[in-house]
């Protein structure tokens, strides 16, 4: 009989990735409300040693599929291996991150199991009586929320938006059993294959890791002006993010775009400059600790999301702001 909660953790640059802590945090909450076990599964190459790092973060049991052929994410291979783990664990609930892996893997698995899946959720709760899953997720580009019942087939599945869940405080006294699963893959099943991977060197702080993010919108007006945001970000040890509008105008690179279908950040400070605050964009910054905004339109929706706001032309406000920040940080 199905039992427990299974999360699919991830590794990045040879270490357990941040999303794993979030998944274990929400997974622990779900498992406790069902009174059942939380299992973390990892798929990759050379990860067996470090996978036990999931125990202090909340896992009761760890499954590892460690195989050289799984070094990079490959759609068909990962789906086969994940399905194998899933059948062994036989959980009531499966949770992944809405990451490059989760976006591809979760629907493939849900289809194979013919079960209900809710994508990109902000909140999950388990129903102890039915062992079912209720998910709250943004819809209509973030303008509304939907509460979704993932149905009666087990396991129920969900992916959670990156940076939307809280990790637990690590408890180093926790430990458990690590189960190794043989990949046993037929290499010929791999069809869509990464033939080349280009790394682009990022100057300064990476957007996803930045403690301070300055967001610029269409209102920035030119590539030259965009440079001013980058200069300010440099002083604040932060990074610059953008809206779809700013990308469309060509002020910045597409990989800086924040929003429901692009990147999600959760910095301590999100400073929105010349950004109206469209739902699509706000979905990507909603978990920032503090949001402040400069906008010439006093009615701009961005102010409803902000702790502090200044109405005015950013060109008039930013120089003095920057000078004061410079003074404060060099004290």
């Amino acid at each position, binding site marked *: 009989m199905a039992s427990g909660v299974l999360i699919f953790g991830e590794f990045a640059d040879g270490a357990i990735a941040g999303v794993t802590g979030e998944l274990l945090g929400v997974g622990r909450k779900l498992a406790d409300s069902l009174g059942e076990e939380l299992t973390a599964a990892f798929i990759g190459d050379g990860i067996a040693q470090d996978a036990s790092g999931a125990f202090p973060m909340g896992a009761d049991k760890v499954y590892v599929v460690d195989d050289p052929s799984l070094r990079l994410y490959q*759609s068909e291979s990962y789906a086969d291996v994940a399905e194998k783990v899933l059948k062994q664990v036989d959980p009531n609930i499966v949770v992944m991150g809405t990451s490059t892996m989760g*976006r*591809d893997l979760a*629907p*493939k698995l849900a*289809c194979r199991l013919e079960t*209900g*899946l*809710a*994508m990109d959720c902000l909140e999950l709760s388990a129903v102890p009586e039915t062992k079912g899953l*209720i998910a709250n*997720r943004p*819809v*209509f*580009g973030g*303008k*509304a*929320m*939907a*509460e*979704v*019942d*993932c*149905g009666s087939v087990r396991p129920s599945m969900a992916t959670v938006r990156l940076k939307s869940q809280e990790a637990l405080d690590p408890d180093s006294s926790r430990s458990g059993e690590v189960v190794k699963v043989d990949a046993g893959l037929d290499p010929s099943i791999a*069809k*869509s*294959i*990464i033939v*080349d*991977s280009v*790394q682009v060197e990022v100057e300064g702080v*990476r957007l996803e890791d930045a403690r*301070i993010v300055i967001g610029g919108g269409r209102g920035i007006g030119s590539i030259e002006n965009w440079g001013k945001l980058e200069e300010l970000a440099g002083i604040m040890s932060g990074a610059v993010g953008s809206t779809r509008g700013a990308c*469309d105008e060509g002020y910045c690179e*597409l*990989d800086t775009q924040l929003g429901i279908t692009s*990147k999600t950040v959760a910095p301590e*400070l999100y400073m929105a400059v010349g950004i109206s605050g469209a739902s699509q964009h706000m979905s990507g910054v909603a978990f920032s600790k*503090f949001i*402040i905004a400069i906008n010439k339109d*006093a009615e701009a929706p961005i*102010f*409803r*999301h*902000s*702790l*502090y*706001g*200044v*109405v005015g032309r950013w060109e*008039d*406000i*930013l*120089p*003095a*702001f920057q*000078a*004061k*920040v410079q003074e*404060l940080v060099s004290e």
Partner: protein
Amino acid sequence: MKFLVFVKQIPDPDIPPAQFRIDTEKNTVAPPQGSSPAVSTYDELAVEAALRLRDDVGGEVTVVSLNNNPVMNVIKKPLAMGSDNLILLQDDAFEGGDAMTTARVLAAAAKKIEFDLILCGRQAGDWDNGQVGSYVAEMLGVPIVINSGKLEVNGDKIRVERTTKDGRDIIESPFPTIITAGDEIGVARYPKLRDIMAAGRKQPEVWNAQDLGLDPSKVGDAGALTKVNRLYLEEKSSQVEMIEADTPAEAGEQLAMKLRDLKVI
């Protein structure tokens, strides 16, 4: 080459948040007066990507839409953009479905049509699920590449560029395959007036559940695995403190001081 594009008609995605209302009984959007539905943005990008490939290597673009209430000038936009055929999938039995039942209908339609490449948006602008493309791929047993950017036919494979968190991947997938279109496709073309007129005269083909050999218990409300219990608007507690100062420069300085108070800088 034969290209199939799945498109969805959705409520106007540009309804301003202040006018966005919900019909709580039907759990759907109550669009404001005068707003018109639209082809979901990413599906439009999928049409654009298909047209570029067709212009490059030749072939035919067929657009397929599960749509019981088509607004003709909306759903014919892909034709006006340059697609060759339009097939509408209509049946009362399709009402009230979810991503899985939608995929079952689309997969059944794809089985009736010869194709080398299926394209659709990475997610629809109403429910933002991002599931249908992957479900259809599994149902048809073909590979999929999601969130694609630039596409290129490379012999018996499609070559896909996809942005990653620190660069980009080049992915190759053998035909027949499915691609879902992401932002990096770029901008969809605007149809010319003459082409809009020509599209208006074209009659879409219409297929129902029986034409597709679908079991009514597997589609629509009857076949859905998930259920939307509640659609709601989040309450935004507006507690913003507006900084008032005599000059913009003073406001800027005060804002910086607030960040020091918050210990952010």
